[in-house]
Structure formats: structure tokens, C-alpha cells
């Protein structure tokens, strides 16, 4: 079974994240970068499935050159190889463009299963799995907290507010995972050494026969008009409990008409 895991490099949520003043895109130099956390769960699930059923895991990343660090980390967890789409023309692409690029690569390299995180920590759109399924015309098995593959049948538990739905489809398919699904492994020393020799194919927009005018900021269907730092919240009242903290809290709630 050939599995492709889509991995995005994102700014560390602990570091300060900024938008660039010149074009309102994410300032990727300003913050430390790492693998989008949920994508580690996607990698782990891919590794478990190929360990059980045979096959290979390919990492697919669309992003700047710096993203090679994240690709190496994914390979050191145990993935077999990687495809890195990088091109200055991609700067500022929105989800529609990114999904088109990823769909194009998938068409080229072939796959039985694509696994994504259900959401990235920077864009937080949570749309890519649905966009890919739509573009490729294959089943969308998103928000999976459990995945089972049996031959060409695949079933998942799809997490929902009320609990979960069980959903069935057949391969090839798109899966996105939630963090409840597994516990991602740490790269071993052996894994880190092996990763250095694993193949990474680099592709440009031209390699994919994609038009640069249809990508990046210019090709995107959304634009940022303006942005501003959120004004700090007005300082509130803080009291120390001296046996009456609960009553004081109740008074506050009553004054605000919550009770």
C-alpha cells in the first residue's frame, strides 16, 4: 500500500508569529518552524498502516526551502521518501492553490491513500482534505480518530460533536486525522542517520506544468485587506479567595445578568 502523507511546516505556536508588513503573508523567517503538530499524527498513522500491510510512506510538502528541515524530521520518524514542491511563485498561495498543487503531485506519483492533519496551526482552515477529495473524486474520510484498512476497504471513526460516525469507503481515499488517533513516535538515532540518505525529489511549478500566474498571491482567490494587533483586553477585577471567592464570583455573574 502506497501512502502519501501531506506535511506542512508551520511557525512554532510558542514563538511570536507575525504577518509581513509588505504583503500581509505569514512572516516565515520571524518564527521558529516545525512540523504542523497534527501532521505528526498523520505520519504515525501512515507508518503503522504500512508496517501492518506493507508498502511505502512518501512525505509531500509544499513550502519554502526551509521546509526541508521538517521533511528530514518526517523521514527520520521512518517515512521512506519525500517530494518537496518549492517555487518562489508559490509565496502567498491560498488553500485552493495549495490543494491544486498537491492534487497535481498526487496524480503524478500515484497513491492508495493520502493522509493529512485535520487542521494546520497557522492557517487553521481545516479544508485541505475536503478540497483534495473533491479534486481527485475519491472518498473523503476526514476527522478520523481511528482508521482500519482491509484489502481495498477502508473504515474510519469520524469524530463529531456528539461522539463519532463510522464511515466506510474504498481505496484510493483521502484521510485526515485528529490527535486522538495515536501517539506519534520520536525519531530514533538510527532513524535520524538513515533519513540523511533517503531520497527527496524537489519540484517547481514548471515541473508540474502549473502556471505561475495561477499560483501564489496573484493566483489566490482571497486577499488580506488589512490587519492589526488585537487591542489588549481591559484589565479585569481579580480577588483572592478568603472564604468568600465563590460568593464574589456569583455577585459578578449576577451584576452581568448571567444568573
Amino acid at each position, binding site marked *: 500500500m502506497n501512502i502519501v502523507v501531506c506535511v506542512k511546516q508551520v511557525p512554532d505556536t510558542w514563538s511570536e508569529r507575525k504577518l509581513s508588513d509588505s504583503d*500581509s503573508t505569514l512572516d516565515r523567517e520571524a518564527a521558529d518552524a516545525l512540523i504542523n503538530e*497534527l501532521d505528526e499524527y498523520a505520519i504515525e498513522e501512515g507508518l503503522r498502516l504500512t508496517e501492518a500491510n506493507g508498502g511505502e510512506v512518501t512525505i509531500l510538502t509544499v513550502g519554502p526551502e526551509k521546509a526541508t528541515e521538517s521533511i528530514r524530521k518526517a523521514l527520520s520518524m521512518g517515512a521512506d521518501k519525500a517530494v518537496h514542491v518549492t517555487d518562489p511563485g508559490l509565496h502567498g498561495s491560498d*488553500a485552493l492553490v495549495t490543494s491544486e498543487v498537491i492534487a497535481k503531485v498526487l496524480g503524478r506519483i500515484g497513491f492508495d491513500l493520502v493522509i493529512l492533519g485535520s487542521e494546520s496551526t497557522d492557517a*487553521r482552515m481545516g479544508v485541505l482534505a475536503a478540497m483534495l*477529495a473533491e479534486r481527485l473524486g475519491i472518498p473523503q474520510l476526514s476527522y478520523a480518530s481511528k482508521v482500519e484498512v482491509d484489502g481495498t476497504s477502508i473504515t474510519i471513526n469520524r469524530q463529531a460533536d456528539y461522539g463519532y460516525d463510522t464511515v466506510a469507503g474504498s481505496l484510493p481515499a483521502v484521510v485526515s486525522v485528529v490527535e486522538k488517533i495515536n501517539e506519534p513516535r520520536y525519531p530514533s538515532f538510527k532513524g535520524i542517520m538513515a533519513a540523511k540518505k533517503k531520497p527527496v525529489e524537489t519540484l517547481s511549478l514548471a515541473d508540474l506544468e502549473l502556471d505561475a500566474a495561477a499560483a501564489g498571491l496573484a493566483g489566490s482567490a482571497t486577499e488580506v485587506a488589512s490587519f492589526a494587533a488585537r487591542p489588549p*483586553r481591559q484589565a479585569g477585577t481579580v480577588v483572592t479567595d478568603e472564604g468568600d471567592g465563590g460568593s464574589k464570583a456569583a455577585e*459578578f455573574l449576577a451584576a452581568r445578568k448571567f444568573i
Partner: protein
Amino acid sequence: MAEILVLVEHAGETVKKVTGELLTAARRYGEPAAVWAGAGAEAGHARLAELGAAKVYVAAGADFDDYVVAPKAELLAELVAQKSPAAVLVAATAEGREVAARLAVKTGSGILTDVTALGDELTGEQSIFGGAITVQSRVSSGTPIIAVRPNAITPEPVPGEAVTEEVTITVSDAAKGARITGRVEQERGERPELTEASIVVSGGRGVGAAENFALIEKLADALGAAVGASRAATDAGWYPHQFQVGQTGKTVSPQLYLACGISGAIQHRAGMQTSKTIMVVNKDPEAPIFELADFGVVGDLFKVVPQLIEEIEKRAQS
């Protein structure tokens, strides 16, 4: 006047609160036209009229309930082609966003997710990077598709005609690739849904154990609130994961958010920073969550919360 399509969120026959918010938002830009996919439209009709739908498009087929997301996107794409609406509004729930995503691909339109306010010419306000930055975004090509965060807009219902029009579409085989074969509902008592609730009471590591969440639930029930949890609490298995608030959990925007035993890490704030009023109970006066608090109590939640519950119950009786 052009129509604004609003995808109705409903649980069977019950119209969810966010639908009223979307219909209120829609009215400013055109004629609010509700789109009902699946069973239950007849029972929901009166409610849609109250909430301000001028039209109701009903597609009643079983496919909408039997398959994941894709049939609803096909329905909306058909309506976009037939009615040329000025925009499509959906709720920024997991499902709403995914319907929007597929519709965006089908129609080649831009999509804005998790919008917290709508301005002139359908500019959408978004709160990013854990709430640190507010962005105004626009769709620059196609029919704007906008996913609006539940609870962000105050519903101001003006009753509408709710003229019903049946829509029949043949759902393609490609849209029937992911079949829902079963549903497992987990107990949440009579509590409101987390993202829709006006009040959310959340517990974190300070709650200390799964069984202590009964105290958080008791406070929630006294307030008619939903229960949320920090990741520390869901990771420890004290509370189910779908109730996690934060960057990798739900984003909530209630009238009142009450954080008990939560330190206020940036990843938690990302999910609750836009709450209108924030109240905190934490024994550490240095906890960063106090920076957000409209009202904070420095103290042991096992002392403060029971007293608070008692006071609420007392007031309810008098």
C-alpha cells in the same frame, strides 16, 4: 436583490442556533435564502421563517444524511449555478468548513473560514495566531464562500416569508464515496453543544482527576452551560477529546467563558480568546489566564466552585 445562500445547520428537525446568526448576517447583503439538505425541513420551516429566511430551498433526499459532506456541496453548487447568489454563508463547524471547501473547488471561488464579523462588501474579520492579530480578508474571485464562527454574530431575527422551493438533484457517484454506516452518540446530558453554548465552563489540569469533572459539570448545569476542557485534561483522559478547547480543539466564542484550573497557554487561548466575558478560578496568581479575566478568583477551585454553585442555586430559588 441578489440572494445570499445560507446552509442550514440542523440536528434532524431542530434548527441550530448558528443558522439564525447566519440569516441575520445575510440580510445585510441580500435576500436570505436558507438551504435545507436532508430530512426534517417541514418541521423546521416555521423556525426558519421566524429567523428571517425569505426563501427556503429544500432538498430532502436521503443521500444528504447517508454520505459525508460531498452531496451537500453538490447541492450548493447547483444552487450557485441556478440562482447566482452574491455569497454563500455556512457555519464554521467541521462539516460547514468542509462543505465550503468542496464548493470552493467546484465553483473556483475563494473561501474565508472562521470569520468573526462581516463588514462592508463582505469583508470578513478573522482572529489569527491565538487571537493576537485581527485580519480583514476578502474573496477576490468567484462567489464569496464564508464560514462564520458560531456565536460570533448576535442574531436579530426579522421574520421572513420562507417561501419553499423544492430542489431535486441527482447526487453523483463520486459524492457517495464515504458512506456513514453508524453513529455512536456519547452522553453529554442535557447540555448545549460546546460551540453553540452561550456559557462554557472549562476545566484543566487543576481539576486533578476524571471524577472531579463532576464538579465542573455541576457548575455547568447550574448555569445551563456546556463543558469544555484544556488539552492537559483531555490528554490525561479526564474528559473526552471532542470537548477540548484550543488550537487543536474547538474554538468557542460564548457570552461567558469560565476557566477553572487552566493556566492559559497560548494554544488554549487560541480557542477562547474571543469570548465576550471571561471568568477565571486559579490558585496561582501568576497564571497567564488572569490577563484575559474580566473577573478572576485566586483560590482553590475545590473551595471556590462549590460555593459558587451554592450561590447560583440560592439565587435561582429566590
